[in-house]
């Protein structure tokens, strides 16, 4: 099931294909039989549309994303450029040096800062949704994303990547999150107010006091 040509992501089937001589990835949001049709159709349709829009808008924001060739709403399929690269997740869990890994993590912070400056919320910010090609980052999987100016939405993105570092890159989680924040602050002028909100949301979600999580964040000058 997880071979190269046909992989299952979290919610879609991804198929590598040829399209007018280009290598493409077809992302097909297949129907989920566990959900009733009304919910399923609505979700697949709206996520396909918003993912395409956000992929294109991100590019305008200066963040690399796959080129989109085609959108087919009947089958909820996006045909996009195939990125010949590695998942950030695999690179962070590889034998690469910590220094190199931290460079990528800082870059993630910078790019997410750019997305947020343009009011693009990724919605599923994990190291499985960022690829590395020629030492450059390419962001994918915007299906849960949206356009929003709300500090709360940006804070939730920050919490998603923080959580990903904790669950998937445990060994260096705090180095990664600190370095991510440095990158984010370098491109995102309101970074600190986003961090302050993230502290509130995290404390609420995990039933902790704010001072139990505040230490993870870069708030001092």
């Amino acid at each position, binding site marked *: 099931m997880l071979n190269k040509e046909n992989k299952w992501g979290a919610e879609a089937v991804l198929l590598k294909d040829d399209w007018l001589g280009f290598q493409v990835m077809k992302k097909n949001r297949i129907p989920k*039989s*566990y959900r009733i049709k009304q*919910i399923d159709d*609505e*979700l697949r349709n709206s996520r396909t549309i918003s993912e395409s829009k956000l992929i294109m808008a991100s590019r305008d924001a200066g963040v690399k994303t796959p080129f989109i060739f085609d959108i087919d709403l009947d089958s909820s399929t996006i045909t996009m450029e195939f990125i010949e690269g590695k998942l950030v997740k695999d690179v962070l869990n590889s034998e690469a040096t910590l220094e190199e890994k931290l460079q990528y993590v800082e870059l993630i912070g910078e790019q997410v800062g750019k997305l947020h400056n343009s009011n693009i919320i990724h*919605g*599923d910010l994990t190291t*499985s949704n960022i690829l590395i090609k020629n030492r450059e980052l390419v962001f994918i999987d915007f299906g849960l994303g949206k356009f929003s100016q709300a500090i709360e939405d940006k804070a939730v993105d920050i919490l998603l990547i923080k*959580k990903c570092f904790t669950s998937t890159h445990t060994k260096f989680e705090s180095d990664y999150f600190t370095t991510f924040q440095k990158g984010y602050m370098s491109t995102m002028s309101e970074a600190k107010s986003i961090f302050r909100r993230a502290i509130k949301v995290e404390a609420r979600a995990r*039933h902790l006091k704010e001072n139990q999580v505040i230490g993870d964040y870069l708030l001092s000058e």
Partner: protein
Amino acid sequence: MISLGIESSADKLGVGIIDDKGNVLSNVRRTYKPPYGSGIHPREASEYHSSTMPKAIEDAFHESGIKPEEIDLISFTKGPGFGPCLRIGAVTARTLSLSLGKPLMAVNHPIAHVEIGRLVGELDDPVVLYVSGGNTQVIAFSERRYRVFGETIDIPVGNCLDVFGRNAGLSDKENPMGRMIELEALKSSTYVSIPYVIKGMDVSFSGILTHATRLLDSKKHPLEDIAFSLQETVFSMLVEVTERALAHTRKEEVLVCGGVAANSRLKEMLEEMASSHDASFRGLNADLALDNGVMIAWLGILMKQSGVTTEFEDTIVDQHFRPEDVEVTWR
């Protein structure tokens, strides 16, 4: 080794006895019922627990045929849960430990759910959806800890359903509120749109509760339609985040536990999802899926056998005790 486990983190009081082969020797469960129309008050629940405890312990010994001096380990829930309720369990456990001269083990409640599920469900390494009135978490084992891959960022799903049921005037006198909503939902197949809120692998229910309550107040839709739509929406969200965790971790088993796990529609959806990924699915019978003392006793045995000891300061309850805070030494 034989362990007695005490569970008192929320509205349920459980005293269970299990041996190190996994034989359940007794499983006494009592439930505090709040006055009609209101939620659980921690203080009142704790008073119920403290007055019910002596008889529950007596019943557990009686049911098992085990004598107090045959117990090797006293296990109890350290957290998470309501402080006053947790403290009743902790005090009782300390007292028993002192009077019997047997060691204490303070355990994490969600991990106990997972471990009893692995035992009776004969599972090796499941992705676990833990859904109750107090908790909503997707838990899986990774790098020596049980990690929370997804969870609610506001209210637990069981709480969302309970409050909705109360707002709708349903009574939980005969059945738990979740069952009452399930019964309403079964009467309908008309879907009314309700927001679907997923953030990465996390979920949020407070906006949904507000929306569903407004639908009730608008009187434009029969209760059964709203109940159906609410159930379909929140369960779809839970199954989706469980699916995301399954895809992410590439595990091959799914387990559901907690009070909401009694809902047959939720189980049906999880089963469907698991089979589409060639994963196996297990639910548990209510006596071990809901809060109980057996699971606490069992986790105590696993911890003890792997060399964990509980110092006095470890026996202080922790309302916000997280699964990640425990290093898993037994697997």
